[in-house]
Every structure is written in structure tokens, then in C-alpha cells.
């Protein structure tokens, strides 16, 4: 059962050993990374069916619950851990010059990501979160251009600020309950954290962890970073890493914080995120920045989905997250060669027809055209919101629908440019085969989702159900009754 720990340990180990392996043979250094990721993915997949029945808790270092660090793995967490490893494998950085550095950073990212997904302790989450942030600084700045340094700096300022806030939030939680183990917190939260202090802790942690999840006030870094970083890195950041940050917030919402005001804060920030993201994307003139703004909008939709109380909210958020997981990386991969100004894309469909067709498919699924999964995800979000029959939720539905029509407008402006009859002056660079292959693989995933819609929906429903019942969480982590954490 401790194979699961290998998912975290193995990538970290190889990351640090990489430079020494490189001294032995550069070929081994080049291929060891993907191999290790493949191994971790296989481990994860082997454990997956067994988790379907009952989630699994591991005590690190043998210390029993509230003191030691527990590792909690249910299908919900493992799904995102696997997404992290497979995502890094698919989006392996191909930058020519310092291949060694970027592959070790990628391995670190995979390791810390799966660690973050699986950890069951609040401070442990904070540590892994910080590790992941530092690694992403390395990846972004790795490009070497002065623009990447400046954007990394802006990113660092905001996420440093966010980290401090998260720490303050954790301090408040610890002061109130005396423990940081999520299971015990789940037990103590109803009476200890249900007051103002609990709500303040939640807001602080929301903003802290929201930096990576592109939450509205703290996503100012997104346009610059995605415009300067290489599109594989931005694909990783926008596609996978932002989902992990969202995973933490979902864990907190389900297990610890149950106040209704928490949901309204999420809803308001979600609406602002969608509105600002889509409107800014409407005027963007280069593809990278347009995709950055549209990812802000999409994550805004996820926050709105999260703000729906109960299982329906989690199920809707999960559906939108998985759909976005497939969609955004493949769009960023297409932006690898088409990154420049949209005007210059005129007639690009003639040089690379497959890529253009794929872009149309992705655009259709993003705006939610029926048979494609985007539509079902959007439907899942809107239906419970209308059932709640509150004015704020009606506003959210209106904003989402208006944003969808804006999306249709600017995405199809790009499509029109692609299929324009008279080509632009400069010749268009053809996509690297690896990029195109990965993008097609992810696009294929979308089309497969169209056909096996019903089983996929049931699978996601069961994952969401398993994630939301708090009692099994507490039972698996610490079967015997936990005494209060404080040592008097």
C-alpha cells in the first residue's frame, strides 16, 4: 500500500539525482524523466480501481493521526495526482538549451503536485503548495528572456503575498482548533470554526491558494506570465496546476468550512473572474494573451460551480475541471506556433489544416455546443443554480451565458482568420509533430467523451459523492475517536 508514497518520492528523487545521472550519460538523463513519470502513472493507475471501494489513509513515518502527517487518497485526489503526472509527461518541456534544468524542474513539479493532491494535512498542503510555486518560478524564468524575468517577478510578488496570507489563515485555524489534520478539523470545525474567525481564516486561505487558481483579485499575473512563458509551461500551469490549487479549496469547502457566506464570497469572486476574463479576452489581439484571459474566465466558471452547495456543486465543478483539463493544454499547444498576432494567422488553415480543424473543435467545445462535453458541463453548472432561485445565482447564470456568447465571438474571429482566403504576408510556421500529436491526443479525448458520455458522467458522479461524505474521510484517517489536539 505504500506504493502510493512512491508517486511522490520517485519524481523528487530522480529530480535531484538527474545532474549526477547526466554526468554518467546524457542520453539516460534525457529519458529518465519521462520513464519515471510513466512508472508513477502506472502505480497510480494500479491503485485506482482499489480506491473505488474505499479511500485509503497512510500515516507517514508511523506517527498516528493528529500528530503525524497523514496521506489521504480517494479517487478524487488520485484523479488529480494522475492528471499531474500524466500532464507533465505529455507536456514535457522541450526547450533546447538547458534541457537538464527544465526536466528536473518538471519532475519536481510532478512530485510536489501529486504530493499536494494526496496530502491530508493542512500545513503539509501549504508546504507542497509553496514548493510547487517556487518550481513554477523556475519553469517560467527558465525561458531566459528579460520579459520572462519581469513577469516571474510580478508573479512572485503576488504569490509571495498569497503565501503569507495562507500562513496567517493556517495560524488562525490552529489557534481555534489546535490541530492541522484535516480529518480532525472536520470533526472540530462545526463548533470551533463556525464563527467569524473561521470565516476570516477561510477568506485568507482562499486568497492564499487562489493565486494559482487564478481567483479574481489575485490573477493579475496571468496575462504576462502566459504571454512570456513557453506555451508548454503555460499549458501545464493553466491546465493542470490551477486545478490542483482548486482541489485544495474544494477540500477545505467540503471538510472544514460550511458557512453560507463562504459560498457567496466564492460566487462573487467567480462572477467577477468570468466577467473580467471574457471581456478582456474580447479585445486581445494576440492568441497567447487571448487564451490566458479565457482561462481566467473558465476558472471563474469553476468558482461559480463551487459556490453551489452540496454534491451538485462538486459534481459540476469536477465536470468543468476535467473538461478544461483536456481543452486548455491542447489549445496552448496549438498556440506554440500560432502564438503571435491574430492578424498574421490569416490563411493558416491552408498550411496546417489538421491544426485548424482541431482549433475549431476545441473552440466549439469551449463555448458549449451541444454534442461536445463542454455543453454538458455548462448544463450541469446552470441547472442547480436556477433551482436555487436566489437573485445572485440568476446574475451568475446571466453572466455565464453572456460570457459564452462573447467567447463564441472572439474565438470564431480567430477561426475566421485561420480560414481567410488571402493568406497573410509572412509564411506560417508548421507545428512541431510532438506538439500536434499531444494536442490531437487531448482533442481525441474530448471526442471520446462525446461517445461514452453516460459512463463518464456516472464515474464523475461517484467520485464527487465519495469526495463529499465527510464521515468516511474521518473513519479512514483515524478510526478511534480523536481527543482534542491541544496538549495542556
Amino acid at each position, binding site marked *: 500500500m505504500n506504493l502510493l508514497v512512491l508517486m511522490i518520492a520517485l519524481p523528487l528523487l530522480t529530480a535531484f539525482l538527474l545532474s549526477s545521472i547526466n554526468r554518467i550519460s546524457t542520453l539516460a538523463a534525457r529519458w529518465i524523466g519521462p520513464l519515471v513519470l510513466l512508472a508513477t502513472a502506472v502505480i497510480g493507475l494500479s491503485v485506482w480501481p482499489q480506491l473505488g471501494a474505499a479511500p485509503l489513509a497512510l500515516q507517514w513515518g508511523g506517527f498516528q493521526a493528529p*500528530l503525524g502527517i497523514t496521506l489521504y487518497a480517494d479517487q478524487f485526489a488520485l484523479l488529480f495526482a494522475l492528471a499531474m503526472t500524466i500532464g507533465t509527461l505529455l507536456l514535457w518541456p522541450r526547450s533546447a538549451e538547458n534541457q537538464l534544468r527544465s526536466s528536473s524542474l518538471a519532475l519536481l513539479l510532478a512530485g510536489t503536485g501529486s504530493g499536494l493532491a494526496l496530502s491530508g494535512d493542512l*500545513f503539509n498542503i501549504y*508546504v507542497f503548495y*509553496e514548493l510547487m*510555486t*517556487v518550481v513554477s*518560478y523556475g519553469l517560467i*524564468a527558465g525561458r531566459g*528572456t*528579460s*520579459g520572462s*524575468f*519581469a*513577469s*516571474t*517577478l*510580478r508573479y*512572485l*510578488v503576488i504569490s*509571495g*503575498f498569497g*503565501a*503569507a*496570507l495562507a*500562513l*496567517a489563515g*493556517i*495560524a*488562525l485555524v*490552529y*489557534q481555534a482548533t*489546535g490541530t*492541522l489534520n484535516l480529518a480532525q478539523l472536520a470533526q472540530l470545525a462545526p463548533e470551533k470554526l463556525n464563527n467569524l474567525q473561521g470565516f476570516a481564516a477561510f477568506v485568507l486561505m482562499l486568497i492564499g491558494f487562489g493565486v494559482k487558481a487564478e481567483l479574481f483579485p489575485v490573477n493579475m499575473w496571468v496575462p*504576462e506570465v502566459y*504571454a*512570456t512563458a513557453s506555451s508548454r509551461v503555460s499549458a501545464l500551469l493553466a491546465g493542470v496546476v490551477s486545478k490542483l490549487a482548486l482541489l485544495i479549496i474544494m477540500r477545505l469547502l467540503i471538510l472544514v468550512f460550511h458557512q453560507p457566506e463562504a459560498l457567496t464570497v466564492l460566487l462573487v469572486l467567480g462572477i467577477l473572474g468570468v466577467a473580467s476574463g471574457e471581456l478582456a479576452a474580447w479585445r486581445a*489581439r*494576440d492568441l*497567447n*494573451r487571448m487564451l490566458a484571459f479565457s482561462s481566467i474566465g473558465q476558472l471563474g466558471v469553476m468558482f461559480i460551480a463551487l459556490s453551489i452547495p452540496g454534491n451538485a456543486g462538486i459534481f459540476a465543478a469536477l465536470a468543468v475541471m476535467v473538461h478544461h483539463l483536456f481543452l486548455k493544454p491542447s489549445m496552448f499547444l496549438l498556440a506554440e506556433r500560432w*502564438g*503571435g*498576432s491574430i*492578424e*498574421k494567422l490569416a490563411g493558416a488553415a491552408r498550411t496546417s489544416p489538421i491544426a485548424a480543424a482541431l482549433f475549431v473543435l476545441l473552440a466549439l467545445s469551449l463555448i458549449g455546443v451541444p454534442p461536445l462535453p463542454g455543453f454538458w458541463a455548462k448544463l450541469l453548472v446552470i441547472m442547480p443554480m436556477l433551482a436555487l432561485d436566489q437573485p445572485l445565482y440568476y446574475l451568475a447564470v446571466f453572466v455565464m451565458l453572456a460570457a459564452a456568447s462573447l467567447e463564441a465571438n472572439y474565438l470564431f474571429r480567430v477561426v475566421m482568420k485561420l480560414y481567410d482566403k488571402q493568406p497573410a504576408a509572412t509564411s506560417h510556421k508548421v507545428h512541431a509533430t510532438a506538439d500536434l500529436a499531444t494536442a490531437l491526443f487531448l482533442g481525441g479525448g474530448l471526442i471520446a467523451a462525446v461517445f461514452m458520455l453516460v459512463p463518464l458522467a456516472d464515474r464523475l458522479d461517484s467520485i464527487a459523492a465519495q469526495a463529499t461524505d465527510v464521515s468516511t474521510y474521518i473513519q479512514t484517517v483515524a478510526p478511534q475517536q480523536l481527543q482534542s489536539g*491541544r*496538549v495542556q
Partner: protein
Amino acid sequence: MDILDINIILYSAAFGLMLIGIGGIVISNHLIRIIFGIALLEAGANLLLLLSTYHEGASAPIIVDGSVPAMMADPVPQALVLTAIVIGVGILALALSLAIRVQRAYGTLDMREVRLKLEQEISENAGIEMPSSSHAPAVTTANSAAAQQESGS
């Protein structure tokens, strides 16, 4: 001195530190001052974490040959703060090295100019002209005008 005053003073110290840190980030435009702000913010947060289980007169929880002290302080936040400080140091070191790189590349540490140059760079390699609103009058201080000519020439 009853227990209340100490707590009030310590908590206000923690919040004061955090507010000063945030103020540093928000108001100043100079890069190094912003990094100082982050450091102060980190310190404030760590102090807050430590204070979460502070008790007047509690001693370290070490059992010396069998004798258990009357009031033991909770060791957990101490451990947490250690890792938090380590992380803070890591981030600050990276921030400073980045600041050096930016200064070497853009020749200035003024955050507004850096942002303006970053915008120009993105627009150039994306092949679109500068968005009009970015020439807002905000960037009118004397040194930035000088920098403008210098970068313009």
C-alpha cells in the same frame, strides 16, 4: 500584568508587521522595497502562527529525568514556523536574483517602468502594436522620462 495585555500587545505586533509588509508591497514602486515588504509580511505571518498557542510562563516540553514541567508550551507551531521561515528565505533569495536580472535587462528597478517595458516586449514579439491605454499619464516621473529617451534612442 494580567495575561490579556501581553496577548493584545503580541497580536497587535503580529498584525502590525503584516500591515507594514502589505503597505510596503502596495505603495512603493521600487523593487527592493517590495521584496522587503514581502519579508516583513512573512515575519508577521510566522509571528501570528507562533502566537496561536502562546501561554504565559509555559516552559519547553522536555521531560528532564522523569519530571514533567507544570505548564508545557505546544511544540507543533514551533516546527511549522521553522519550515515557513525556510520557505520564506528561499522565496526572497529567488526574488533578489530575479531583481538583479531585471535591473540588468531593463536598467531600472521602478516597478511601473518594468511593467511598461514588459508590455512593449510582449507586444513586439507578438507582432501587435502597443495597446493605446498603456501610455497612461501615470508614468510621468522625471527619471522615467529620462529612461524613456534612453530606451527610445
